[in-house]
C-alpha cells in the first residue's frame, strides 16, 4: 500500500474490542485492507470471525478500537456520531440480511428516507426514489408497505434505498441470508449489474457460489485476514 489515496477504503491495523475489561471480545485483531474504486469484493469466513464487525466499521456504523480507516482518502476513524451519520448518508449504501425497512412506511417512503436526511426537496426525492424502484422492477409496488411484499421484493427495495444517495460504496452483509434461491439469484444479479455500472460493492456471504461471483474474496478467521484472493479478469 503505497498511498491511501488510491483506495476508496483503506484500513490500517484496525482492531475492534467489544465489552468491558473483564469480558473482552477481540472481534478484529489488526486488519489492513485496501479496496479500489469499482471493485466487487466478497468477505467470507466462519461464524463469529468478525465479518459483520468489519462491515460496521467500513460502513461507519461503528469506530475501530484502534487503527486507522480512510474512506475516500479521509480519516474517519475518530469522527463523532453526527459526522459519521453524514458520511453514511452521503457515501454509503447498506443492504442488510434482515432487510431493515421501516414497516410503517411504503416502499417509496423507505427509499426516500436517506434523501430526507440529506435535505433533498420532495419532488426530487420522489423522482429519484421512483426511478430506482422502477429499475429494480418494482414500479407497480411503490406504494406498498414492506409487509405486503415478498422477501425478494423487500430486499430489492432495500437495494434501491442503498443506491438513492448515489453512494461511493455499497455494503451488503449477507443480503441473501433470508431469501430463497430464486430471490437470491435476483439480488446477486442486481448487485453484479450495479458493479458493471461502476459501483464499488462489498458483500459478506456464506454462500461459496455467491462469493464466486466477486472479483476478489477476503477470508476472515478469528479477526484476522487469512486470505485475500483476486480472480484474474476473465
Amino acid at each position: 500500500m503505497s498511498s491511501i489515496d488510491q483506495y476508496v477504503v483503506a484500513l490500517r491495523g484496525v482492531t475492534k474490542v467489544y465489552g468491558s475489561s473483564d469480558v473482552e471480545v477481540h472481534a478484529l485483531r489488526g486488519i489492513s485492507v485496501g479496496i479500489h474504486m469499482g471493485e466487487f469484493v466478497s468477505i467470507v469466513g466462519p461464524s463469529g470471525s468478525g465479518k459483520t464487525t468489519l462491515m460496521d466499521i467500513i460502513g461507519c456504523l461503528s469506530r475501530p478500537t484502534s487503527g486507522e480507516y480512510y474512506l475516500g482518502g479521509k480519516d474517519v476513524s475518530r469522527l463523532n456520531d453526527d459526522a459519521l451519520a453524514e458520511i453514511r448518508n452521503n457515501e454509503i449504501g447498506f443492504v442488510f440480511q434482515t432487510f431493515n425497512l421501516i414497516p410503517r412506511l411504503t416502499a417509496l417512503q423507505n427509499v426516500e428516507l436517506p434523501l430526507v436526511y440529506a435535505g433533498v426537496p420532495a419532488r426530487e426525492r420522489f423522482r429519484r426514489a421512483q426511478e430506482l424502484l422502477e429499475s429494480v422492477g418494482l414500479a407497480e409496488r411503490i406504494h406498498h408497505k414492506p409487509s405486503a411484499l415478498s422477501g425478494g421484493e423487500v430486499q430489492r427495495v432495500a437495494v434501491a434505498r442503498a443506491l438513492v444517495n448515489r453512494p461511493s460504496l455499497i455494503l451488503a452483509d449477507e443480503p441473501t441470508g433470508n431469501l430463497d434461491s430464486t430471490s437470491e439469484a435476483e439480488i446477486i444479479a442486481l448487485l453484479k449489474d450495479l458493479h458493471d455500472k461502476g459501483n464499488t460493492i462489498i458483500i459478506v456471504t456464506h454462500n461459496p457460489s455467491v462469493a464466486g461471483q466477486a472479483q476478489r474474496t477476503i477470508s476472515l478467521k478469528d479477526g484476522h485476514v487469512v486470505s485475500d484472493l483476486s480472480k484474474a479478469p476473465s
Partner: protein
Amino acid sequence: MFLVETIAQAWQSIRSHKLRTGLTMFGVIWGIASFIILVGLGKSTLKLFSREFEKVGKRMLVMWAGQSSSGLSGIKGGRQIRFTIDDVEAIKAHCPHVELVSPQIYTGYQETKYENEVLSSETFGLDVNSGVIRNLDVAKGRFINADDIALNRRVCVLGANVKEKLFGERESVGEFIRMSGIRFQVVGVLQHKGDQLSRVSGSIDDDQISIPYTTAQALFTGSKYFGMIYLQPRSLFDDKTVREEVRQTLALRHSFEPDDADALHFFGIAEMIGRVKGVAMGMEIFFGAASIITLLIGGIGVMNIMFVSINERVREIGIMKAVGAKSRHVFLQFIVESVFVTFLAGLIGVLIGCSICLLIGLFNLPRFVAAPVIDPFVMLIAFLTITLVGILSGILPALRASRMQVVEALRYY
C-alpha cells in the same frame, strides 16, 4: 421541509396505534376541556356579576351626607351635613373628573292610583342626569327634562313594573295618576331591567316612580335640603380621584376637614366590581391550577407512551441512523410525535370544552349562574400549555432515542 416529513411520519405512527394513543390522550383531553370550562365559568361569573351591578348605573357613585367629626375655623364638630342644589353646582364647577352629578331626593313609598288600581311605590325626586347615571333607560315617552325641573312640574316616569301593574297593556304616557292624592302626568315609561343584585334602595328600579327633584321638594319633603348626591366619574378608574375632588369641594362649603371620614360616605360600582373581580380571579386561578395539574398528569401519560413507543421502535431508530439521520433528526422526530399527540388531544379537548360551554348555555340556568364563556385568551393559554406539555413529555424519550448507538439499535430484537 424536514419538519413536514417528520409530522407526516408522526401522524403515521400515531395511526398505527389508535387505541393506545387514544387512551393516552384521554388525560390531556380532559385536562384541557376542564381548563376551558372552569376558567370560562370564572370569567362568565365575573361578567354576570359585573353586568348585574352595572344595572344600577354603569359608573354610579353614591354619596350621602354624614356628620362632621371635627369643626373647622371655629365651627363646632358633630353637625349633620345637609346638601343643597348649590353643592351639586359646586361639584359641577370644581370637580373635573366628575362627568355627571345629580341630587336624589327620597320621598318614600307613595300610594299610587290609576282608575281602580292601587299600589305602594317607592318614589324618588331626580334630575335630568339621573337617568344616565342610574341606567334608567326610557322605553316609551321621555325622561324628566330641564323644564320639568324649572317649573316643578307634576310629571312622573314609571318603572316597568309600575306601568304594568297600573295600566297593564294600556297606554300610559299622557295619562294621569295620583300619588298620595296628587295628580301626576305620566311622561315616560322605563325599560324593563329585571331583578337586580344591587339597588339604590329597598325596591328594584322596575318598581319605582321618578319625579322631578324640585317637585319632590315642593310637594313631599318641603325642604331645600337633601341627603344624597349621585355622581358619575369620567371612567371607573377615576373613582378615587372623584371622591377626593368632591371631598375637597364640599369640605370648604360645609366647613369640615377634607380627610374627615364621617362627613361624607361613598359607595360605588367600582368597589363592587373590584370585590367580585377578586373572587372571580381567585376562582379562575384555583380552577385553572387544578386543570393544569390534570393536564400535567396527562402529559406524564404521553411521556410514558412515548417511552413505550421508542422501546418498540429501537430497530427503526437504528435504521434511521444507518441511512443518515443525525441525533437531532431523531430527537426532532420524537418531539414532534409527542407534541403532535398532545396537540391532537388538546384540540379534541378544546372542542369538547367549547361544546360543553355552549351546551350549558342551552339550559335554563338558575339565577346568577352563567354559562362559561369561550374566551380567546383562555384558548391561547390552553394551546400554549398543550404545546409546552407536549414538548416536556417528549424531551426525555426523544433524548433517549437520539442517544441510541446505531449498531446496537440495528441488531435489537
